[in-house]
């Protein structure tokens, strides 16, 4: 037992900041120098969720829960001597919200955390993910013990059903129902339990964080699911782009085996469970359930028509359940604290919490977990700290390439499965990208379509050809060649794709386009009729000018221009040759007098 724990955030958002690599050794050395090595332990932990620009690396000190941000190796001595030795706080480095609140000693009191409710991410950043003992100390594997020794498989399914838990991967299908469908013929047929960790939605990284920060919660939940449906074998399908998550999961599986929590006769019962990791190979469509399973089988990851549903004919053609990482992470607390506790959080049709990856044009970026039904305003303004640089909130995009945009007029929409689909957006996996008035909505719609065109597997025509045609129509508009007729064509094509595509990828591919047309029609019309991009993003509709009154002739822009399109002599106003200009924006970055205008 140690008196204090120093947890250095080791996640991508912190560890890629220069200087981070020296923190661990520096803490060790300074702690030793202060004679505290028997009292204080230094660990590399996982994401605390505060990933704001310029904030990391974060260092948390437990049990008090103080978070220091932007810690450099040269700050370590001060933290050790002031905080750990004298129990003072190094105010200049404390997470700034804790300072503005006054003498708050714990981050729990900050706006960023106060309105959150951490269930799926309960252990992230708090325990050492590479040490099973820390998970066990946080009631880990108690739920598995409880189901194996006190509950029948049907009782487990009943609890999950009663909790109202819905799949966190996107579609929001009730988890308990999925389990029930697959529960027939226990012990008579081979079945599989799979975990979808192929987190591919651009802008969503909560599954990665759970796998990196609390891998045992997923392992425990999968074992519980296996017991419930009568399976003895599981697969976790992880994106290869997440090497750290894979490493932590591998360590966790090995430790669980060593402790007898995976393998044969778990907790001395008849229950056996083996778990394997399968690495994705870079195909977004493999997040779709049937595609994921064909990929595990070693084939092209193409979806197939349903029915038969995986619950009756899934992986290797046997009954299979597939849940997403965040869904699984909710299972152990549900078993331990009961369905009633879980369903009391959130709203009746969407119980519990949801983790959002807050990103884009927002002050506090990072992972936030809030009760379902929290309004978008609370997430963006209170937790997210609002829009930086004095700009204004224009829209939030949820659900990634399958989702839609929520305009500023609907900022009081409660964020839950049904409220979001009612307004044409979607929960999706929980990416929440905030956009300000410098974001062009046509460009955003085009961005998602480019992604989908790239990732469409090509098996069915509505998706393969439809997405391509849709992208061509949008490109016409952003190039200034669109007509009003194109808007109708887009809507017609979108509804055809929705009805006729084989899987959700194609069925939802048009959502970002449709929702932006719905809420930002004026912006589309402005592109089409006036050949003008109000946000100043669509290159072909922009021209650059130098205001001769503001230009001092410093030549900085002319030097920066990669195509020598700026002419002029020293101390005389310069001008841009628009026929040569490639609209790269280098000149604007360099101009100190605000003389260059983009229209």
């Amino acid at each position, binding site marked *: 037992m140690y008196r204090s724990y120093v947890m250095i955030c080791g996640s991508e958002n912190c560890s*890629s900041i220069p200087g981070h690599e020296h923190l661990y050794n520096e803490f060790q050395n300074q702690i030793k120098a202060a004679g505290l090595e028997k009292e204080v332990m230094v660990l590399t932990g996982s994401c605390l969720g505060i990933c704001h620009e310029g904030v990391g690396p974060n260092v948390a000190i437990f049990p008090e829960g103080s978070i220091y941000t932007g810690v450099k190796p040269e700050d370590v001595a001060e933290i050790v001597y002031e905080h750990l030795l004298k129990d003072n706080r190094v105010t200049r480095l404390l997470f700034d919200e804790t300072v503005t609140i006054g003498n708050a000693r714990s981050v729990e009191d900050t706006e960023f955390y106060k309105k959150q409710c951490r269930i799926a991410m309960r252990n992230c950043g708090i325990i050492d993910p590479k040490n099973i003992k820390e998970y066990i100390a946080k009631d880990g594997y108690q739920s598995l013990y409880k189901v194996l020794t006190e509950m029948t498989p049907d009782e487990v399914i009943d609890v999950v059903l009663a909790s109202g838990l819905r799949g966190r991967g996107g579609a929001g299908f009730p988890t308990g129902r999925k389990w029930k469908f697959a529960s027939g013929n226990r012990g008579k047929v081979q079945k599989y339990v799979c975990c979808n960790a192929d987190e591919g939605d651009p802008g969503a990284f909560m599954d990665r*964080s759970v796998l990196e920060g609390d891998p045992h919660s997923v392992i425990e939940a999968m074992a519980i699911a296996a017991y419930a449906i009568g399976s003895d074998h599981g697969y976790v399908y992880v994106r290869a782009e997440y090497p750290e998550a894979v490493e932590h999961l591998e360590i966790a599986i090995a430790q669980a085996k060593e402790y007898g929590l995976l393998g044969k006769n778990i907790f001395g019962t008849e229950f056996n469970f083996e778990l394997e990791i399968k690495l994705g190979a870079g195909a977004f469509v493999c997040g779709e359930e049937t595609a994921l399973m064909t990929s595990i089988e070693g084939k092209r990851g193409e979806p197939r028509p349903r029915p038969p549903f995986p619950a009756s004919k899934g992986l290797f053609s046997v009954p299979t359940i597939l849940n997403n990482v965040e869904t699984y992470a909710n299972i152990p607390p549900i078993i331990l604290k009961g369905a009633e506790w879980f369903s009391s959080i959130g709203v009746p049709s969407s119980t519990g919490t949801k983790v959002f990856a807050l990103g884009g044009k927002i002050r506090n970026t990072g992972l936030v977990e809030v009760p379902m039904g929290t309004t978008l305003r609370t997430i963006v303004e209170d937790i997210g700290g609002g829009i930086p640089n004095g700009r204004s909130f224009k829209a939030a995009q949820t659900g990634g390439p399958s989702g839609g945009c929520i305009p500023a007029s609907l900022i009081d929409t409660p964020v839950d499965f049904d409220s979001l689909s009612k307004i044409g957006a979607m929960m999706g996996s929980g990416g929440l990208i905030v956009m300000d008035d410098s974001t062009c909505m046509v460009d955003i719609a085009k*961005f998602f379509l480019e992604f989908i065109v790239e990732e469409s597997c090509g098996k069915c025509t509505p998706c393969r050809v439809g997405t391509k045609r849709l992208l061509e129509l949008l490109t016409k508009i952003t190039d200034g060649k669109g007509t009003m007729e194109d808007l109708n064509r887009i809507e017609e094509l979108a509804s055809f794709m929705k009805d006729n595509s084989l899987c959700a990828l194609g069925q939802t591919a048009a959502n970002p386009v449709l929702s932006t047309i719905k809420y930002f029609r004026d912006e589309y019309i402005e592109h089409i009729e006036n050949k003008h991009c109000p946000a100043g993003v669509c290159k072909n509709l922009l021209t650059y000018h130098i205001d001769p009154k503001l230009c001092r002739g410093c030549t900085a822009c002319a030097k920066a221009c990669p195509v020598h399109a700026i002419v002029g002599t020293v101390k005389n106003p310069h001008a841009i040759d628009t026929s040569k200009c490639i609209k*790269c924006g280098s000149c604007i970055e360099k101009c100190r007098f605000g003389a260059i205008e983009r229209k």
Partner: protein
Amino acid sequence: MLDKSYYDKTDEIIAEHGARHASLIPIIQDIQAQYRYLPLELLSYVAKKIGITEAKAYSVATFYENFSFEPKGKYVIKVCDGTACHVRGSTPILERLYSELGLSQEKKTTDDMMFTLETVSCLGACGLAPVMTVNDKVYPAMTPDAAAALIRELRG
């Protein structure tokens, strides 16, 4: 013709995963990790060893983004084009790198085999957007100038 050592290594990898159809992807992932690309000769060899047609193995290898039949450069640069990076300006960074390296969407590797430039959809480091990676090391909060400076530094 590849050196015999390539086939010996492949045999080792096949033995590790088992000569089954379901092992195809893990096997070719390991080969690619070993040589930083997937030599076509080895793909055919694996197909024969695990009892599937060459055509099937080829269809799988070409389906997934991660497999490359072309050797990659010494430095593999990936510019993240996830949503958060996109709205914070990843496109100008990519364009600058294309012009700095003389590459394009079609031509991904420089002739001197020093650099390969690719895009990647979301690395999950959205707090530091826009980001890029060089041989998996993440460079946060990039700008076109910083990216160009990094290339000059890597060139030495």
